[in-house]
């Protein structure tokens, strides 16, 4: 396990930031699930949209990370600006849908 942490520390900083963001999103999702377990799932659509938005941002963060990672052979010729632009676009669509679904 220590080797795991050692190897992980070697990843570049911007990737670590993205990882942190992903972890945060997943944690928020877990909090929401626990909350629903306690309070009951009455407005189910709000619950659904909340949880899915968290998971959605997590997933998109992972996608961004995959695309930006310089070690990743398949994305060598994808400029990081393009990857980020895609990420922003997807997030926009995601949040639009979520806000529609929330109420």
């Amino acid at each position: 396990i220590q080797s795991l942490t050692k190897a992980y520390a070697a990843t570049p900083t911007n990737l670590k930031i993205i990882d942190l963001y992903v972890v945060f999103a997943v944690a928020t999702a877990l909090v929401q699930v626990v909350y629903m377990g306690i309070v009951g799932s009455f407005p189910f659509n709000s619950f659904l949209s909340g949880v899915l938005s968290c998971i959605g941002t997590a997933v998109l963060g992972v996608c961004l990370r995959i695309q930006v990672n310089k070690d990743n052979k398949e994305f060598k010729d994808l400029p990081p600006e393009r990857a980020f632009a895609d990420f922003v676009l997807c997030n926009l669509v995601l949040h639009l849908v979520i806000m529609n679904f929330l109420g």
Partner: protein
Amino acid sequence: FLSKNGIYEFWNWFDDRTWYPLGRVIGGTVYPGLTLTAGSIWWFVNALNIPLSVETVCVFTAPIFSAIASWATYLLTKEAKGTGAGLMAAAILAMVPSYISRSVAGSYDNEAVAIFALVFTFYLYVKTLNTGSLFYATLNALSYFYMVCSWGGYTFIINLIPMHVLLCIVTGRYSSRLYIAYAPLVILGTLLAALVPVVGFNAVLTSEHFASFLVFIILHVVAFVYYIKGLLTPRLFKMAMTLVITVGLAVCFAVVAILVALVASSPTKGWSGRSLSLLDPTYASKYIPIIASVSEHQPPTWPSYFMDINVLAFLVPAGIISCFLPLSDASSFMVLYLVTAVYFSGVMVRLMLVLAPAACILSGIALSSAFDVLTRSMKFQLSKLFDDGPAIVRSSKNEKTEKSEAAPKEKQSKKNRRKDKEVTESVSVKPKKEKRLSVLPLEASIVSTLLLIALGGFYVVHCVWAAAEAYSAPSIVLTSRSREGLHVFDDFREAYAWLSHNTDVDDKVASWWDYGYQTTAMANRTVIVDNNTWNNTHIATVGTAMSSPEKAAWEIFDSLDVKYVLVVFGGLVGYPSDDINKFLWMVRIGGGEFPHIKEPDYLRDGQYRVDAQATPTMLNCLMYKLCYYRFVETDGKGFDRVRGYEIGKKHFKLTHFEEVFTTHHWMVRIYKLKPQKNRIRGKLKKLKSSSKTSSTLAAGRKKNPWQ
């Protein structure tokens, strides 16, 4: 309605002109995609000041979308194989009869738009898989949303794509592009699907969607594993793996146990009726007679395969082989799509439509590979004729396609064996060495090219014929050829026109559900049940009424406020799909809900008859009476042209219904419910005298209290 009131009203529209007295929550039971598309096209066109009426837009929506679907097929095949294959596939789809059947001008059904959405979604998925771009993943999700809006068949997509992802993982083709293609789709797609009112929370609750979530989790696990693998050295990796596996398995078991408990608690295990009947072809006939009764839901016969996709039927296996040749993600997806489509179309004729694009794509691939080989051989041979040097052997394109020529040659041999025996000798010269180029001799390639073109020609001819004969006739007006030329049976429109002119606006009409939409649209009267068939009990009520004796039927119809009953009868002209032939389904559906209707009561020795040997229950039921009332007057003997024998009970009177209209060829018969006479105790003579003055019926009827 949509164009008049705008979209918000549409969502909340409660249609009370159909399914009386329940009405229908349009917003909650209709797939809005089709209507929204037509509405927006109409609005756009009108905004450009081109005055098109709503009906015109509706009628032409289907052909426009089929043209666009052809373009989408081109894109999809191009992603899978290359531009040549794409063009071929698009041309084939443009003509395939099965698709034409659902997209004729005037056919305003969900599938017209849905097939386009299906192919386009698949195209975007494959494109995302190939390029790994998040932009296309978003487009993919949006296209999936459009598909969900349009058709219930979207569950096909949401199950096919996870299956493909699983297949890729299992065959070791996992890549990060797979993750990008699939994960955003699941999240965004589920959210968007939940937006559509018809689907609502079913998007996460029903078993149809579980596959996508399951594969989502699996994908994450696999992605994580790969990531760790990249970080650690192999030895440490093994240690970590064992740790992870033990923990992971434990968690997995727990989750699966919970899921199974949840799912098993519902009687149908969470699947909807339609999906269940797809998975298990015998389910529908056992439990839900109404699904089984729609003729399009029956399993197709072999001739219908040939009729619908014609030549494609034998090009498809060739396409499968050529897909394996360079096996990429996209081509494996094609093969998977085809295999599942074939299975499902084997269950229901209606799903031949889903098979059609798959078959077209694969045949397109096959044809284009075949043409590739042939033309290359011809070019090579021709150039060899002019220039004897072996230097030409090393031309670059030949080496690239060397592998792919081996298998197309096998296809060639299969086709040519039937046509040209001599060619088989040349086939045996298969490439053994790498450099040696195997090319068909000139005559063989020319002959096969010509034959392939001829094959294509046959296909075109067949498609055009099928489109003209089988799928173009509007089902409302029937035609038949007689010696004087085309004889038109306009009975349906006659009946609906009569209804709209001679009845009150608020009168309710009861008929079998096949005619519901037509009655609402053309006669503009409220109907009891129509083609949407969303309420089985209501339909069963109508079925029971049709199968009961007159008094019971009258009571059922009276409780529904029905004024008029409409039956379709083909016995005079030999129209085979009339209500007597459908009658057994009415019995079955009615019997499914009301157990006092038993099917064996209507059958004599297990056979369905209406002649002298029929059972008394059959001869007394409402359907029999309404169809054959006064039938003997036509030819004296009551010979039913469809069934081919004389009917059983010939002379009878109707006590609770009166005939108000019969069309020219006796095809549609409309009856009115007789009002219940107020009971006056005693004083029968008074009744008789008053009824005599008010009676307007033909003479010779027996007086009875209901008159």
